[in-house]
């Protein structure tokens, strides 16, 4: 959606236009799932989080003053829902999540076993991060969002985003070097 259309669409959706809202869903659903998945490490939780996020978005879209913030806002809502769902899954430990990821990686159509194992290591290392930091890493590297966009999503300044990213990457690097 270009900026002009986006403004109109957001305004219409905020006013109760379901078709406009569906356009927003179509444009942003996949990105929300991607980030929710990398935050939660679980496909089911990711989808539940995004469904919940759409419910929230419908209710609160009218509070969004700047249409340019739409994507960061939606992604942050999905990431937040994923974090909360993860917290509610009380018996699901980090270790179990890693098992799930291993299972999913083992059934994915990776052509190369080494590459698959490497991806698994990377995911396992990400699980060592705080969920909020995982969201920031996911926004940056899975969605390609800028520090300014991530800052809008996470209520951080761009330098603050870069600082947290650097700290997260350093931790991931250490995790990977320990493997």
């Amino acid at each position, binding site marked *: 959606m270009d900026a002009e259309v986006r403004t109109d669409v957001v305004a219409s959706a905020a006013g*109760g236009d379901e*078709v406009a809202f*569906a356009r927003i869903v179509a444009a942003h659903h996949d990105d929300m799932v991607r980030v929710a998945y990398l935050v939660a490490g679980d496909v089911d939780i990711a*989808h539940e989080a995004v469904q919940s996020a759409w419910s929230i978005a419908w209710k609160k879209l009218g509070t969004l003053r700047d249409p340019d913030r739409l994507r960061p806002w939606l992604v942050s809502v999905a990431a937040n829902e994923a974090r909360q769902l993860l917290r509610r899954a009380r018996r699901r430990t980090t270790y179990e999540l890693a098992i*799930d990821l291993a299972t999913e990686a083992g059934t994915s159509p990776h052509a190369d076993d080494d590459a698959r194992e490497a991806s698994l290591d990377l995911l396992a290392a990400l699980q060592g991060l705080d969920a909020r930091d995982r969201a920031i890493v996911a926004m940056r590297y899975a969605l390609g969002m800028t520090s300014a966009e991530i800052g809008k999503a996470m209520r951080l300044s761009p330098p603050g985003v870069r600082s947290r990213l650097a700290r997260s990457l*350093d931790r991931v690097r250490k995790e990977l070097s320990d493997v």
Partner: protein
Amino acid sequence: MSDEWSDAMDALEGRLARELPALAERAVTSIDAMAIARAAAIAHPRGGKGPRGVHRFTLAAAVLVAAAALAGLAVALGQPSNVISPTPKPSSVQKPTPTAEVLAPFGYGGAGTIAFVRPDPAVGDNAVWLINPSGSGEARFRVRTDWTGHPATFSGVSCCAIFSPDGKRVALAYAQEGGAAGPGMWTETRILNLDGSDYASVPDFCGACDSTSQLNYVPRAWSPDGKLLALEAWSDADPSKDGINVSPTTTGNTTDWATHVTGNHRDVPIAFSPDGTQLLFVRISGNDRNGPLMVVDLPDIGFSQGRPTPGSVHQISPDGVLVSVSGYFGGPASWSSDGSRVAFAAALASTTDHPSRVFVVDTNGGSARSITSVENWITTAQWSPDGTWIAFDEPSDSGAHDLVIVRPDGSGTKELTTTFEPGICCARWSPDSHALLAAGTVTHDKESYLFIVPINGDPVRQVTTVPALYEDFSWGPASR
């Protein structure tokens, strides 16, 4: 910082940029954006899209309303991804793959006919289907000849099939486009034999309800003698016409074809009392499809002596709890076989997790007694036809639901589906009280099937084989 550290960080950034998008992609699936938007709008209505607008547009919307309101259970049951989940409940354990035993076509079958609602690709929306308890003879319900004498089918959405007490007739609703009152969807009720013959309108002369009464009618309950239907009725134009209508199922009476039993409330009939003198219903408000459980007395109901006078209406559920009604979750309340008591599932109105109980209340007064512990998202309470058990559903450790039966005094709790994964819910009794009919999921494909669960521990029997969202299912005593 050393060059080695910088190189390592650069390399890691490169890896993340290459691999994270591919890893994240594995969670992405195709979606129906309009369905998601629609479900969100229904779950949280605003901007003048009131309840009547919702129901006028589609019968399926009524299901989505309740499904969204009870989304924790919906998630547990593998509701399709187009249903928004305000309070989703993630699975806390890895659920096992279904075993061949669960899917094997053996076990109790029973007699009679099962009706259910499932999307029909030919219609593009929900349609009523019939199937034998053995799993044979599945067919979409078709009209042999319509009121003009011509072969016909329900061209639009149809739903909400309920069997007459003898099981030989079915009442259903269907929505059709347009009419004398103008564009839009209109919901009408028809009754017909199991083979699609002897097609009739209810109320009589409601072949064009939009022009005669401007009311929508959905059948909800047959009287015990089969002579009356209780209809959920509402007007898109005039809310004062909302209420329960009771109408004769036979044609020919054109003067008092219906009685506005309650009036000026959006009430959903649940069931007539066994002696036919009272009608159980839920008084819903807004789009939530839930509200207090009520009873209306029908002291002089009859149609040969003019328009009857409605009896008194009184609430039998405790204040502060809500009873939900939807085609998906099925019967939230039911009469004991002697008509002296009612069992119902109700949730605290003030919380989002829906802590629920099954209650039993004497219909001649007295307070409701809880016969179960508090569990989130109990949705059904079905008294067996022989009066010996009450069936309900409760969440399992995995977050899905199990079927449970309990004696009416709260003793003898028996969990029937503890090995059934991921979940099964919202049972209706077989006519002989030996088994339950329920919708369950056996995989994580977000679809369900119908199953028969014998209460004596015999193996669960799979009835349908088409994965779908099954709603409004019921089990009549007559075979085709």
